[in-house]
């Protein structure tokens, strides 16, 4: 795919002849119309979708961080109904994508809200929180609760316990849950497809474009750019996870 994106000429076959950056930054040609022949750099719709994708994914990542952390911390205690809550949250991932998307359409129509920036964010968060939750619960420092208890025995206020004991110990898990949320939101297309507004996010924009446009190396160029973003996010994720473990050892 990366190779094809540098390919000159418009046919799509191996072996690859010629090297060009035209599909990335080339000027729009005057004799061919349609977005498949515009280079990625000059495709304004692409960049609009790129921007909204970035905003949506960042918002989804932050929300995933917050919700996964609070839930994971609460679920450590053996409270009544713990399993039920855990399963309900897991449902966000288990409910098939189409069904969740359609359900959201129903909800928003019923309440009378339009689709805004926040609708894809909510859908992505619902999808990402189970992952974040499982990730955190699997990786929490085993003696975290003992430290917390020690702090509260020493009369630290609940807020101070969280601020000065819990959070510093789990900060990298929180960060990695957020980054994973970002990656999932960045690539999610099935659920988002139902609830977008405007140009939509990147994944839905590309889907609708390749559905109607001719195949051209431009899409591989676009794909390379999109994938680079999530690869960088994932490298950060791996780095955050390893920080979490080395920090504790």
């Amino acid at each position: 795919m990366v190779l094809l994106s540098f390919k000159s000429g418009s046919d799509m076959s191996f072996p690859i002849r010629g090297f060009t950056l035209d599909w990335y930054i080339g000027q729009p040609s005057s004799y061919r119309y349609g977005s498949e022949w515009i280079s990625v750099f000059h495709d304004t719709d692409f960049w609009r979708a790129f921007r909204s994708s970035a905003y949506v994914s960042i918002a989804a990542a932050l929300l995933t961080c917050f919700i996964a952390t609070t839930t994971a911390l609460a679920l450590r205690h053996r409270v009544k109904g713990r399993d039920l809550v855990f399963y309900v949250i897991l449902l966000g991932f288990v409910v098939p994508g189409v069904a969740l998307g359609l359900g959201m359409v129903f909800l928003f129509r019923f309440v009378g809200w339009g689709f805004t920036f926040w609708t894809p964010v909510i859908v992505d968060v619902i999808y990402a929180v189970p992952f974040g939750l499982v990730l955190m619960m699997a990786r929490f420092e085993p003696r975290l609760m003992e430290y917390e208890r020690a702090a509260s025995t020493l009369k630290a206020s609940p807020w101070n316990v969280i601020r000065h004991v819990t959070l510093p110990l789990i900060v990298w898990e929180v960060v990695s849950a957020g980054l994973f949320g970002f990656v999932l939101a960045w690539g999610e297309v099935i659920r988002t497809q139902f609830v977008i507004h405007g140009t939509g996010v990147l994944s839905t924009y590309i889907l609708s474009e390749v559905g109607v446009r001719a195949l051209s190396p431009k899409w591989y160029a676009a794909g390379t750019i999109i994938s680079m973003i999530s690869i960088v996010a994932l490298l950060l994720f791996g780095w955050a996870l390893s920080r979490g473990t080395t920090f504790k050892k």
Partner: protein
Amino acid sequence: MLLPGLVLCVLFLIVPFGLMVTISLYQNISPATMVLSGFSFENYIGFFSKGTSYIILANTFGNSLLACLACLLIGYPFAYLLSYSVKNEKVKSYMVSLLIVPFLIDTSIRMIAWIPILGNQGAINQLLLSLHVVQNPLSLLYNVGALQILWLQGYVLFMIFPIYLALNRIDPDLIAAAKVLRASPQNVFYYIVFKLSLPGVICGCIFVFVSTLGDYITPLFIGGGIQTLGLSVSDYANSFAWPYAAALSTMLTGVAIAVLYILLKVVNIKELIYER
């Protein structure tokens, strides 16, 4: 502390699902006002009285099960290698990135990326034609095989990750003890490693099964429009036949939840995450 998670799930998970079930029990709905009329089970009865419905069901579950199996066959050895054979951290991280990169490629791009490889003028066909293995290009795209390749590529990570977690939790002393007691390598693998990694296997199967159930885009673009339940949901939803689409997605969700429930009865998934 539970509040944010619960609010999110109740508001945007339980309520939409409730609405979906409700709408599926009515005959008509006006998309503008959302007024329901004509209470009946006709949507469900209608579905099960059509002969094509059974083909759709077979397609849906057959393909998802096949995807589970394929992911398990590829994923288990991979997870095993990752947790036992590869000691070098660097090699390990390269293996993991090799695995994750395809997962990160955008779904649509991942689909079209296969066209130059599997297509009629694609690399495989060119090779076969030039070697005179075949006379006419094979049609490798737009069928179940292509669909399975795409799903494997996209979802094998969901299989490997929980298996890897489960394998890592196995006490190495157990394996050492079995070896001391002269268990054969096959027996060590089957009675200790495999049995103790079952929660991970089940977890991975659930992940792959429900993900493929809900994916209608890959069957549409690469599966040659093979009729699955998910695809029908999106078709009916797009033509505003909402009650029927709601009935179909209620069934889809019901099956996903049932599978989850049954499998959770068999193994304790929480072993993977609670109490170490």
